[in-house]
Protein backbone atom coordinates (compact mmCIF):
# COMPACT_ATOMS: atom_id res chain seq x y z
CA UNK A 1 0.00 0.00 0.00
CA UNK A 2 1.16 3.44 -0.91
CA UNK A 3 0.20 4.88 2.43
CA UNK A 4 3.07 3.01 4.00
CA UNK A 5 5.42 5.02 1.88
CA UNK A 6 3.73 8.27 2.69
CA UNK A 7 3.83 7.61 6.38
CA UNK A 8 7.56 7.01 6.22
CA UNK A 9 7.92 10.06 3.98
CA UNK A 10 10.60 8.24 2.13
CA UNK A 11 11.58 8.81 -1.40
CA UNK A 12 10.23 6.67 -4.24
CA UNK A 13 10.58 2.96 -3.89
CA UNK A 14 12.81 0.87 -6.08
CA UNK A 15 11.09 -1.49 -8.46
CA UNK A 16 12.26 -4.36 -10.51
CA UNK A 17 10.78 -4.35 -13.91
CA UNK A 18 10.87 -6.59 -16.87
CA UNK A 19 13.25 -5.15 -19.38
CA UNK A 20 12.18 -7.47 -22.15
CA UNK A 21 8.89 -5.70 -22.59
CA UNK A 22 10.65 -2.37 -22.91
CA UNK A 23 12.44 -3.50 -26.03
CA UNK A 24 11.17 -1.49 -28.89
CA UNK A 25 9.47 -3.17 -31.70
CA UNK A 26 10.85 -1.37 -34.69
CA UNK A 27 8.96 -3.58 -37.09
CA UNK A 28 5.69 -2.38 -35.68
CA UNK A 29 4.37 -0.12 -38.40
CA UNK A 30 0.84 0.33 -37.18
CA UNK A 31 0.11 3.96 -36.58
CA UNK A 32 -1.84 3.98 -33.38
CA UNK A 33 -1.77 5.25 -29.85
CA UNK A 34 0.10 2.15 -28.80
CA UNK A 35 3.05 3.25 -30.84
CA UNK A 36 4.00 6.07 -28.53
CA UNK A 37 3.84 4.55 -25.11
CA UNK A 38 3.69 1.11 -23.65
CA UNK A 39 2.70 -0.24 -20.28
CA UNK A 40 5.58 -2.13 -18.84
CA UNK A 41 5.30 -5.10 -16.54
CA UNK A 42 7.10 -5.03 -13.25
CA UNK A 43 7.12 -6.99 -10.07
CA UNK A 44 6.61 -5.43 -6.69
CA UNK A 45 9.60 -5.81 -4.48
CA UNK A 46 10.02 -4.71 -0.90
CA UNK A 47 10.03 -0.96 -0.46
CA UNK A 48 13.47 0.47 -0.01
CA UNK A 49 14.20 4.10 0.49
CA UNK A 50 16.03 5.48 -2.50
CA UNK A 51 18.22 7.81 -0.49
CA UNK A 52 20.44 6.04 2.00
CA UNK A 53 19.68 6.84 5.63
CA UNK A 54 21.80 9.45 7.31
CA UNK A 55 22.83 11.27 4.18
CA UNK A 56 23.05 15.02 4.38
CA UNK A 57 22.09 17.80 2.00
CA UNK A 58 23.53 21.24 1.54
CA UNK A 59 21.22 24.22 1.41
CA UNK A 60 21.74 26.14 -1.80
CA UNK A 61 20.84 29.40 -0.10
CA UNK A 62 22.58 29.45 3.28
CA UNK A 63 25.13 26.69 2.65
CA UNK A 64 24.31 24.84 5.88
CA UNK A 65 24.61 21.06 5.92
CA UNK A 66 21.34 19.46 7.01
CA UNK A 67 20.40 15.87 7.73
CA UNK A 68 18.00 14.56 5.12
CA UNK A 69 15.76 13.07 7.77
CA UNK A 70 15.35 16.43 9.45
CA UNK A 71 14.81 18.09 6.11
CA UNK A 72 12.06 15.67 5.10
CA UNK A 73 10.28 15.98 8.42
CA UNK A 74 10.37 19.75 7.86
CA UNK A 75 8.59 19.55 4.46
CA UNK A 76 11.95 20.01 2.80
CA UNK A 77 12.28 23.54 4.05
CA UNK A 78 15.70 24.54 5.32
CA UNK A 79 15.41 24.78 9.13
CA UNK A 80 18.16 27.38 9.11
CA UNK A 81 17.06 29.89 6.50
CA UNK A 82 13.63 28.78 5.26
CA UNK A 83 14.73 28.06 1.68
CA UNK A 84 12.66 25.48 -0.21
CA UNK A 85 14.34 22.32 -1.40
CA UNK A 86 12.85 20.53 -4.39
CA UNK A 87 10.42 17.78 -3.43
CA UNK A 88 9.99 14.46 -5.13
CA UNK A 89 6.45 13.57 -6.16
CA UNK A 90 5.91 11.21 -3.24
CA UNK A 91 7.27 13.66 -0.71
CA UNK A 92 4.97 16.34 -2.09
CA UNK A 93 1.93 14.13 -2.10
CA UNK A 94 2.51 13.08 1.49
CA UNK A 95 2.24 16.71 2.60
CA UNK A 96 -1.08 17.23 0.79
CA UNK A 97 -3.36 14.21 1.09
CA UNK A 98 -4.94 12.31 3.95
CA UNK A 99 -2.08 9.86 4.25
CA UNK A 100 -3.98 7.32 6.31
CA UNK A 101 -6.79 7.08 3.81
CA UNK A 102 -6.94 5.14 0.60
CA UNK A 103 -4.74 6.45 -2.18
CA UNK A 104 -4.80 4.72 -5.54
CA UNK A 105 -2.03 5.26 -8.00
CA UNK A 106 -3.02 5.15 -11.67
CA UNK A 107 -1.09 4.29 -14.80
CA UNK A 108 2.15 3.83 -12.95
CA UNK A 109 3.34 1.50 -15.67
CA UNK A 110 2.98 3.94 -18.56
CA UNK A 111 6.28 4.66 -20.21
CA UNK A 112 7.36 6.04 -23.55
CA UNK A 113 8.10 3.95 -26.59
CA UNK A 114 10.72 6.43 -27.75
CA UNK A 115 8.76 7.55 -30.82
CA UNK A 116 11.71 9.26 -32.53
CA UNK A 117 14.09 6.38 -31.77
CA UNK A 118 16.26 9.14 -30.43
CA UNK A 119 19.93 8.16 -30.06
CA UNK A 120 20.76 7.18 -26.50
CA UNK A 121 17.33 8.02 -25.09
CA UNK A 122 16.18 4.50 -24.32
CA UNK A 123 19.38 3.71 -22.43
CA UNK A 124 19.13 6.97 -20.52
CA UNK A 125 15.56 6.15 -19.51
CA UNK A 126 16.44 2.65 -18.39
CA UNK A 127 19.26 3.93 -16.22
CA UNK A 128 17.09 6.59 -14.72
CA UNK A 129 14.25 4.16 -14.07
CA UNK A 130 16.63 1.84 -12.33
CA UNK A 131 18.24 4.58 -10.29
CA UNK A 132 15.09 6.40 -9.19
CA UNK A 133 12.54 3.62 -9.10
CA UNK A 134 10.27 5.88 -11.15
CA UNK A 135 9.00 4.96 -14.59
CA UNK A 136 8.49 8.54 -15.72
CA UNK A 137 8.25 12.01 -14.23
CA UNK A 138 4.72 12.12 -12.87
CA UNK A 139 2.70 10.49 -10.13
CA UNK A 140 -1.06 10.29 -10.68
CA UNK A 141 -3.38 9.32 -7.84
CA UNK A 142 -6.92 9.44 -6.60
CA UNK A 143 -6.81 10.36 -2.94
CA UNK A 144 -8.58 12.40 -0.28
CA UNK A 145 -7.87 15.83 1.08
CA UNK A 146 -9.74 16.25 4.35
CA UNK A 147 -12.05 13.43 3.26
CA UNK A 148 -12.85 14.92 -0.16
CA UNK A 149 -12.12 12.71 -3.16
CA UNK A 150 -9.81 14.27 -5.66
CA UNK A 151 -7.50 13.40 -8.53
CA UNK A 152 -3.97 14.64 -8.07
CA UNK A 153 -0.96 14.61 -10.34
CA UNK A 154 2.48 15.54 -9.10
CA UNK A 155 5.39 16.06 -11.46
CA UNK A 156 8.73 14.76 -10.29
CA UNK A 157 11.70 17.04 -10.90
CA UNK A 158 14.19 14.21 -10.40
CA UNK A 159 13.09 12.51 -13.60
CA UNK A 160 14.66 14.38 -16.55
CA UNK A 161 13.71 17.67 -14.87
CA UNK A 162 10.05 16.72 -14.95
CA UNK A 163 10.04 17.19 -18.71
CA UNK A 164 6.83 16.20 -20.48
CA UNK A 165 6.92 13.49 -23.11
CA UNK A 166 4.27 11.04 -24.25
CA UNK A 167 4.10 9.19 -20.92
CA UNK A 168 3.33 12.30 -18.87
CA UNK A 169 0.95 13.58 -21.56
CA UNK A 170 -0.91 10.28 -21.61
CA UNK A 171 -1.12 10.01 -17.82
CA UNK A 172 -2.42 13.56 -17.46
CA UNK A 173 -4.95 13.06 -20.26
CA UNK A 174 -6.27 9.90 -18.63
CA UNK A 175 -6.42 11.76 -15.31
CA UNK A 176 -8.61 14.53 -16.73
CA UNK A 177 -10.79 12.03 -18.60
CA UNK A 178 -11.33 9.97 -15.44
CA UNK A 179 -12.06 13.04 -13.35
CA UNK A 180 -14.57 14.26 -15.95
CA UNK A 181 -16.34 10.92 -15.92
CA UNK A 182 -16.47 10.82 -12.12
CA UNK A 183 -17.25 14.52 -11.63
CA UNK A 184 -14.17 15.10 -9.54
CA UNK A 185 -11.82 18.05 -9.21
CA UNK A 186 -8.19 17.86 -10.29
CA UNK A 187 -5.03 19.31 -8.78
CA UNK A 188 -1.78 19.26 -10.73
CA UNK A 189 1.51 20.15 -9.08
CA UNK A 190 3.74 21.42 -11.85
CA UNK A 191 7.49 21.16 -11.75
CA UNK A 192 8.98 20.90 -15.16
CA UNK A 193 11.59 22.21 -17.53
CA UNK A 194 8.99 21.94 -20.32
CA UNK A 195 8.39 19.55 -23.15
CA UNK A 196 10.80 16.63 -23.39
CA UNK A 197 13.23 17.25 -26.25
CA UNK A 198 14.01 13.59 -26.91
CA UNK A 199 10.43 12.94 -28.01
CA UNK A 200 10.36 15.97 -30.29
CA UNK A 201 7.09 16.74 -32.04
CA UNK A 202 5.32 14.06 -29.97
CA UNK A 203 6.08 16.03 -26.82
CA UNK A 204 4.80 19.22 -28.46
CA UNK A 205 1.54 17.48 -29.35
CA UNK A 206 1.04 16.43 -25.71
CA UNK A 207 0.43 20.11 -24.98
CA UNK A 208 -2.61 20.05 -27.27
CA UNK A 209 -3.73 16.65 -26.03
CA UNK A 210 -3.64 17.51 -22.32
CA UNK A 211 -5.15 20.97 -22.90
CA UNK A 212 -7.97 19.31 -24.82
CA UNK A 213 -8.77 16.85 -22.04
CA UNK A 214 -8.58 19.70 -19.57
CA UNK A 215 -10.93 21.84 -21.67
CA UNK A 216 -13.52 19.06 -21.61
CA UNK A 217 -13.15 18.71 -17.84
CA UNK A 218 -13.66 22.45 -17.54
CA UNK A 219 -16.64 22.43 -19.87
CA UNK A 220 -18.28 19.90 -17.56
CA UNK A 221 -18.16 22.55 -14.84
CA UNK A 222 -15.42 20.89 -12.84
CA UNK A 223 -12.66 22.47 -10.80
CA UNK A 224 -9.01 22.36 -11.78
CA UNK A 225 -6.34 23.85 -9.54
CA UNK A 226 -2.79 24.10 -10.81
CA UNK A 227 0.01 24.57 -8.32
CA UNK A 228 3.23 25.93 -9.76
CA UNK A 229 6.46 24.96 -8.06
CA UNK A 230 10.06 25.67 -8.94
CA UNK A 231 10.61 25.49 -11.88
CA UNK A 232 7.60 25.59 -14.22
CA UNK A 233 8.66 26.55 -17.72
CA UNK A 234 8.30 25.92 -21.45
CA UNK A 235 5.59 23.68 -22.85
CA UNK A 236 4.16 22.97 -19.41
CA UNK A 237 3.64 26.68 -18.75
CA UNK A 238 2.19 27.01 -22.24
CA UNK A 239 -0.42 24.34 -21.53
CA UNK A 240 -1.91 22.91 -18.33
CA UNK A 241 0.11 24.99 -15.84
CA UNK A 242 -1.58 28.21 -16.94
CA UNK A 243 -5.07 26.78 -17.41
CA UNK A 244 -6.13 26.34 -13.79
CA UNK A 245 -9.44 27.81 -12.67
CA UNK A 246 -7.29 28.74 -9.73
CA UNK A 247 -3.52 28.97 -10.07
CA UNK A 248 -1.42 28.81 -6.92
CA UNK A 249 2.35 29.00 -6.66
CA UNK A 250 5.01 28.39 -4.07
CA UNK A 251 7.03 31.47 -3.13
CA UNK A 252 9.96 32.42 -5.37
CA UNK A 253 9.35 29.64 -7.90
CA UNK A 254 10.68 30.22 -11.40
CA UNK A 255 7.67 30.36 -13.74
CA UNK A 256 7.85 31.33 -17.39
CA UNK A 257 7.54 30.33 -20.99
CA UNK A 258 11.11 30.92 -22.17
CA UNK A 259 13.92 30.21 -19.74
CA UNK A 260 15.74 33.24 -18.32
CA UNK A 261 19.03 32.27 -19.96
CA UNK A 262 17.44 32.06 -23.40
CA UNK A 263 15.78 35.44 -22.92
CA UNK A 264 19.01 37.01 -21.78
CA UNK A 265 20.81 35.64 -24.84
CA UNK A 266 18.03 36.80 -27.17
CA UNK A 267 17.73 40.36 -25.94
CA UNK A 268 21.32 40.79 -24.80
CA UNK A 269 20.53 42.63 -21.60
CA UNK A 270 20.39 41.75 -17.94
CA UNK A 271 17.05 40.61 -16.61
CA UNK A 272 15.41 42.58 -13.82
CA UNK A 273 15.63 41.32 -10.24
CA UNK A 274 12.89 38.84 -9.44
CA UNK A 275 11.96 38.39 -13.11
CA UNK A 276 9.78 35.30 -13.74
CA UNK A 277 9.44 34.49 -10.05
CA UNK A 278 6.06 33.78 -8.42
CA UNK A 279 5.90 37.30 -6.97
CA UNK A 280 6.48 38.77 -10.46
CA UNK A 281 3.67 36.67 -11.93
CA UNK A 282 1.32 37.66 -9.12
CA UNK A 283 2.17 41.30 -9.75
CA UNK A 284 1.41 40.91 -13.47
CA UNK A 285 -1.86 39.12 -12.87
CA UNK A 286 -1.02 35.60 -13.98
CA UNK A 287 -1.47 33.68 -10.75
CA UNK A 288 -4.13 33.85 -8.06
CA UNK A 289 -2.14 33.38 -4.92
CA UNK A 290 1.25 32.54 -3.49
CA UNK A 291 0.97 29.86 -0.84
CA UNK A 292 3.71 28.78 1.55
CA UNK A 293 4.48 25.08 1.45
CA UNK A 294 3.32 24.51 5.01
CA UNK A 295 -0.08 26.11 4.24
CA UNK A 296 -0.73 24.36 0.94
CA UNK A 297 -2.88 21.50 2.23
CA UNK A 298 -5.03 23.90 4.23
CA UNK A 299 -5.57 26.32 1.33
CA UNK A 300 -6.33 23.53 -1.14
CA UNK A 301 -8.87 21.93 1.15
CA UNK A 302 -10.64 25.28 1.65
CA UNK A 303 -10.86 25.85 -2.09
CA UNK A 304 -12.20 22.35 -2.65
CA UNK A 305 -14.86 22.84 0.02
CA UNK A 306 -16.02 26.06 -1.61
CA UNK A 307 -16.47 24.23 -4.90
CA UNK A 308 -18.14 21.18 -3.58
CA UNK A 309 -21.56 21.71 -5.10
CA UNK A 310 -20.03 22.19 -8.49
CA UNK A 311 -17.43 19.54 -8.41
CA UNK A 312 -19.31 16.66 -6.90
CA UNK A 313 -22.16 15.51 -9.02
CA UNK A 314 -23.23 18.98 -10.07
CA UNK A 315 -24.03 19.82 -13.65
CA UNK A 316 -23.10 23.21 -14.97
CA UNK A 317 -26.75 24.14 -15.39
CA UNK A 318 -27.37 23.94 -11.66
CA UNK A 319 -25.94 27.01 -10.06
CA UNK A 320 -26.17 25.87 -6.51
CA UNK A 321 -27.97 23.39 -4.35
CA UNK A 322 -28.90 23.81 -0.74
CA UNK A 323 -29.82 21.01 1.51
Amino acid sequence: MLSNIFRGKQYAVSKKYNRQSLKDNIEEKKKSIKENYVEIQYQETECKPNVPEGIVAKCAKCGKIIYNKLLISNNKICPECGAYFKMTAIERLSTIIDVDDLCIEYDKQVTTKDPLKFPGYKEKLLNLQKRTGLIDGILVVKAKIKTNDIYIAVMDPVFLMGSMGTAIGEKLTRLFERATKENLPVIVFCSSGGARMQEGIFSLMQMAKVSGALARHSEAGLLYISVLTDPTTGGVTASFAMLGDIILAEPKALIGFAGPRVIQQTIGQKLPEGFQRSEFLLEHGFIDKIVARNDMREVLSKIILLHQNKSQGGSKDEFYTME
Partner: protein
Amino acid sequence: MNFTPWNKVQIARSPLRPTGLDYIENLFDDFIELHGDRRFSDDKAIVGGIASFKGIPVTVIAQQKGRNTKDNILRNFSMPHPEGYRKALRLMKQAEKFKRPIICFVDTPGAFCGIGAEERGQGEAIATNLASMMLLKTPILTFVISEGGSGGALALGVADRVYMLRHAIYSILSPEGFASILYKDSSRAEEAANDMKLTAQDLYKFGIIDGIIDESDGGVQTNSLKTMREIDMIIEKDLTSLINEETKDMLDKRYERYRKI
Protein backbone atom coordinates in the same frame (compact mmCIF):
# COMPACT_ATOMS: atom_id res chain seq x y z
CA MET B 1 15.56 14.90 -55.74
CA ASN B 2 16.54 13.98 -52.20
CA PHE B 3 16.77 16.55 -49.47
CA THR B 4 18.34 16.08 -46.06
CA PRO B 5 16.41 17.40 -43.05
CA TRP B 6 18.94 20.20 -42.80
CA ASN B 7 18.36 21.13 -46.47
CA LYS B 8 14.68 21.36 -45.61
CA VAL B 9 15.37 23.62 -42.64
CA GLN B 10 17.25 25.98 -44.95
CA ILE B 11 14.61 25.85 -47.69
CA ALA B 12 11.84 26.46 -45.14
CA ARG B 13 13.65 29.55 -43.90
CA SER B 14 14.31 31.02 -47.34
CA PRO B 15 13.21 34.66 -47.57
CA LEU B 16 12.05 33.94 -51.14
CA ARG B 17 9.14 31.78 -50.02
CA PRO B 18 5.65 33.22 -50.16
CA THR B 19 4.50 34.64 -46.81
CA GLY B 20 1.17 34.29 -45.05
CA LEU B 21 -0.27 37.34 -46.77
CA ASP B 22 0.69 35.93 -50.18
CA TYR B 23 -1.45 32.89 -49.48
CA ILE B 24 -4.31 35.03 -48.22
CA GLU B 25 -4.20 37.26 -51.30
CA ASN B 26 -4.05 34.33 -53.68
CA LEU B 27 -6.62 32.04 -52.13
CA PHE B 28 -9.33 34.40 -50.89
CA ASP B 29 -11.38 37.33 -52.13
CA ASP B 30 -12.33 40.52 -50.35
CA PHE B 31 -9.89 40.09 -47.47
CA ILE B 32 -10.43 42.67 -44.77
CA GLU B 33 -7.73 42.73 -42.13
CA LEU B 34 -8.95 43.09 -38.55
CA HIS B 35 -6.55 44.39 -35.96
CA GLY B 36 -5.79 44.14 -32.28
CA ASP B 37 -6.39 41.91 -29.30
CA ARG B 38 -8.61 44.46 -27.47
CA ARG B 39 -6.29 44.04 -24.49
CA PHE B 40 -2.94 45.57 -25.22
CA SER B 41 -1.97 46.11 -28.87
CA ASP B 42 -1.92 44.87 -32.42
CA ASP B 43 0.79 42.29 -32.98
CA LYS B 44 1.98 42.54 -36.57
CA ALA B 45 3.59 39.10 -36.47
CA ILE B 46 0.07 37.72 -36.86
CA VAL B 47 -2.31 38.91 -39.55
CA GLY B 48 -5.98 38.07 -39.37
CA GLY B 49 -9.29 39.01 -40.83
CA ILE B 50 -12.35 38.03 -42.77
CA ALA B 51 -12.55 37.05 -46.41
CA SER B 52 -14.51 35.05 -48.90
CA PHE B 53 -13.55 31.60 -50.12
CA LYS B 54 -15.56 30.85 -53.26
CA GLY B 55 -18.47 32.73 -51.80
CA ILE B 56 -18.19 31.30 -48.28
CA PRO B 57 -17.27 33.82 -45.56
CA VAL B 58 -14.20 32.60 -43.68
CA THR B 59 -11.82 33.85 -41.01
CA VAL B 60 -8.16 33.69 -41.99
CA ILE B 61 -5.20 33.99 -39.64
CA ALA B 62 -1.55 33.90 -40.66
CA GLN B 63 1.81 34.27 -39.03
CA GLN B 64 3.56 36.82 -41.16
CA LYS B 65 7.23 36.99 -42.03
CA GLY B 66 8.49 40.18 -43.59
CA ARG B 67 8.70 40.46 -47.35
CA ASN B 68 11.94 42.45 -46.94
CA THR B 69 14.27 43.51 -44.14
CA LYS B 70 12.28 46.54 -43.14
CA ASP B 71 9.05 44.57 -43.19
CA ASN B 72 10.67 41.80 -41.19
CA ILE B 73 11.44 44.21 -38.36
CA LEU B 74 7.84 45.39 -38.38
CA ARG B 75 6.70 41.74 -38.29
CA ASN B 76 9.23 40.84 -35.58
CA PHE B 77 10.43 38.03 -37.89
CA SER B 78 7.06 36.38 -37.39
CA MET B 79 7.68 35.76 -33.72
CA PRO B 80 4.40 36.66 -32.03
CA HIS B 81 3.94 38.22 -28.61
CA PRO B 82 1.05 37.15 -26.36
CA GLU B 83 -1.19 39.80 -27.93
CA GLY B 84 -0.74 38.10 -31.31
CA TYR B 85 -2.16 34.87 -29.94
CA ARG B 86 -4.91 36.78 -28.16
CA LYS B 87 -5.83 38.58 -31.38
CA ALA B 88 -5.95 35.23 -33.16
CA LEU B 89 -8.24 33.81 -30.49
CA ARG B 90 -10.48 36.87 -30.59
CA LEU B 91 -10.91 36.41 -34.33
CA MET B 92 -11.51 32.69 -33.92
CA LYS B 93 -14.25 33.28 -31.34
CA GLN B 94 -15.75 35.82 -33.70
CA ALA B 95 -15.67 33.18 -36.43
CA GLU B 96 -17.48 30.76 -34.13
CA LYS B 97 -20.14 33.35 -33.38
CA PHE B 98 -20.79 34.03 -37.04
CA LYS B 99 -20.35 30.40 -38.05
CA ARG B 100 -17.39 30.99 -40.30
CA PRO B 101 -14.74 28.31 -40.86
CA ILE B 102 -11.22 29.24 -39.78
CA ILE B 103 -8.13 28.82 -41.93
CA CYS B 104 -4.71 29.30 -40.32
CA PHE B 105 -1.30 29.62 -41.95
CA VAL B 106 1.62 28.78 -39.70
CA ASP B 107 5.04 30.25 -40.38
CA THR B 108 7.07 31.13 -37.29
CA PRO B 109 10.48 30.33 -35.82
CA GLY B 110 8.63 30.33 -32.47
CA ALA B 111 6.84 32.57 -30.01
CA PHE B 112 8.97 35.59 -29.10
CA CYS B 113 11.24 35.35 -26.05
CA GLY B 114 11.57 38.64 -24.24
CA ILE B 115 10.75 40.55 -21.10
CA GLY B 116 7.47 42.00 -22.39
CA ALA B 117 6.33 38.65 -23.74
CA GLU B 118 6.84 37.08 -20.31
CA GLU B 119 5.28 40.00 -18.45
CA ARG B 120 2.17 39.70 -20.56
CA GLY B 121 1.93 35.93 -20.23
CA GLN B 122 3.26 34.20 -23.34
CA GLY B 123 2.62 30.82 -21.73
CA GLU B 124 -0.91 31.71 -20.73
CA ALA B 125 -1.74 33.06 -24.19
CA ILE B 126 -0.57 29.91 -25.96
CA ALA B 127 -2.20 27.60 -23.40
CA THR B 128 -5.53 29.40 -23.72
CA ASN B 129 -5.45 29.01 -27.50
CA LEU B 130 -4.78 25.28 -27.26
CA ALA B 131 -7.67 24.65 -24.88
CA SER B 132 -10.07 27.03 -26.64
CA MET B 133 -9.39 25.77 -30.16
CA MET B 134 -10.21 22.25 -29.05
CA LEU B 135 -13.78 23.40 -28.26
CA LEU B 136 -14.43 25.93 -31.04
CA LYS B 137 -17.66 24.99 -32.77
CA THR B 138 -16.53 25.75 -36.29
CA PRO B 139 -14.19 23.94 -38.69
CA ILE B 140 -10.48 24.78 -38.41
CA LEU B 141 -7.85 24.03 -41.08
CA THR B 142 -4.16 24.70 -40.52
CA PHE B 143 -1.44 24.86 -43.15
CA VAL B 144 2.20 24.88 -42.04
CA ILE B 145 3.61 26.79 -45.00
CA SER B 146 7.28 27.10 -44.00
CA GLU B 147 8.45 27.02 -40.39
CA GLY B 148 6.39 25.53 -37.59
CA GLY B 149 8.33 26.46 -34.49
CA SER B 150 7.26 25.02 -31.17
CA GLY B 151 4.32 26.13 -29.02
CA GLY B 152 4.29 29.33 -31.03
CA ALA B 153 3.14 27.31 -34.05
CA LEU B 154 0.88 24.93 -32.16
CA ALA B 155 -1.11 27.90 -30.84
CA LEU B 156 -2.60 28.13 -34.36
CA GLY B 157 -2.34 24.42 -34.95
CA VAL B 158 -5.14 22.75 -33.01
CA ALA B 159 -7.36 21.99 -35.97
CA ASP B 160 -9.58 19.47 -37.71
CA ARG B 161 -6.99 19.04 -40.44
CA VAL B 162 -3.32 20.00 -40.49
CA TYR B 163 -1.24 20.04 -43.67
CA MET B 164 2.37 20.87 -44.39
CA LEU B 165 4.08 21.98 -47.54
CA ARG B 166 6.57 19.48 -48.92
CA HIS B 167 9.60 21.43 -47.67
CA ALA B 168 8.05 22.81 -44.50
CA ILE B 169 9.28 21.84 -41.03
CA TYR B 170 7.42 21.52 -37.73
CA SER B 171 9.29 20.92 -34.51
CA ILE B 172 9.45 21.25 -30.76
CA LEU B 173 12.24 23.82 -30.99
CA SER B 174 14.64 25.21 -33.59
CA PRO B 175 17.42 22.73 -34.44
CA GLU B 176 19.88 25.29 -33.03
CA GLY B 177 18.03 25.50 -29.72
CA PHE B 178 17.62 21.76 -29.62
CA ALA B 179 21.35 21.19 -30.21
CA SER B 180 22.27 23.68 -27.54
CA ILE B 181 20.04 21.94 -24.99
CA LEU B 182 20.75 18.30 -25.80
CA TYR B 183 24.26 18.43 -27.22
CA LYS B 184 25.33 21.59 -25.37
CA ASP B 185 26.51 22.91 -28.73
CA SER B 186 24.27 25.01 -30.96
CA SER B 187 26.60 24.51 -33.94
CA ARG B 188 25.44 20.91 -34.16
CA ALA B 189 22.10 22.03 -35.57
CA GLU B 190 22.44 19.88 -38.66
CA GLU B 191 22.77 16.74 -36.58
CA ALA B 192 19.85 17.90 -34.46
CA ALA B 193 17.72 18.38 -37.57
CA ASN B 194 18.35 14.73 -38.43
CA ASP B 195 17.50 13.41 -34.98
CA MET B 196 14.44 15.61 -34.46
CA LYS B 197 12.37 14.20 -37.35
CA LEU B 198 10.91 17.55 -38.28
CA THR B 199 10.11 17.21 -41.98
CA ALA B 200 6.63 17.05 -43.46
CA GLN B 201 7.42 13.49 -44.56
CA ASP B 202 8.30 12.44 -40.99
CA LEU B 203 5.19 14.01 -39.52
CA TYR B 204 2.97 12.43 -42.13
CA LYS B 205 4.47 9.03 -41.39
CA PHE B 206 3.82 9.61 -37.67
CA GLY B 207 0.17 10.42 -38.39
CA ILE B 208 0.54 13.90 -36.89
CA ILE B 209 -0.44 15.72 -40.09
CA ASP B 210 -3.14 14.84 -42.59
CA GLY B 211 -1.31 15.47 -45.83
CA ILE B 212 1.62 16.99 -47.66
CA ILE B 213 1.14 19.71 -50.23
CA ASP B 214 3.45 19.45 -53.18
CA GLU B 215 5.94 22.11 -54.10
CA SER B 216 8.70 22.19 -56.70
CA ASP B 217 12.21 20.92 -56.01
CA GLY B 218 13.42 24.49 -56.10
CA GLY B 219 10.89 25.53 -53.47
CA VAL B 220 7.34 26.80 -53.59
CA GLN B 221 8.45 30.19 -54.97
CA THR B 222 9.50 28.62 -58.29
CA ASN B 223 5.96 27.46 -59.03
CA SER B 224 3.72 28.90 -56.38
CA LEU B 225 0.58 28.82 -58.50
CA LYS B 226 0.66 25.05 -58.58
CA THR B 227 0.94 24.91 -54.78
CA MET B 228 -1.80 27.50 -54.31
CA ARG B 229 -4.10 25.51 -56.58
CA GLU B 230 -3.53 22.40 -54.49
CA ILE B 231 -4.28 24.25 -51.26
CA ASP B 232 -7.38 25.72 -52.87
CA MET B 233 -8.63 22.23 -53.70
CA ILE B 234 -7.93 20.95 -50.20
CA ILE B 235 -9.78 23.84 -48.55
CA GLU B 236 -12.78 23.25 -50.78
CA LYS B 237 -12.80 19.50 -50.18
CA ASP B 238 -12.29 19.74 -46.40
CA LEU B 239 -14.77 22.52 -45.80
CA THR B 240 -17.39 20.65 -47.80
CA SER B 241 -16.96 17.57 -45.68
CA LEU B 242 -16.60 19.38 -42.33
CA ILE B 243 -19.62 21.63 -42.86
CA ASN B 244 -21.72 18.51 -43.35
CA GLU B 245 -20.64 16.97 -40.07
CA GLU B 246 -22.57 17.31 -36.84
CA THR B 247 -20.68 19.76 -34.63
CA LYS B 248 -20.35 17.21 -31.86
CA ASP B 249 -18.86 14.62 -34.21
CA MET B 250 -16.47 17.16 -35.62
CA LEU B 251 -15.28 18.12 -32.12
CA ASP B 252 -14.97 14.49 -31.05
CA LYS B 253 -12.81 13.80 -34.09
CA ARG B 254 -10.72 16.91 -33.45
CA TYR B 255 -10.16 15.74 -29.88
CA GLU B 256 -9.31 12.23 -31.07
CA ARG B 257 -6.82 13.64 -33.58
CA TYR B 258 -4.61 14.71 -30.67
CA ARG B 259 -5.77 12.12 -28.15
CA LYS B 260 -4.20 9.32 -30.15
CA ILE B 261 -0.73 10.93 -30.25
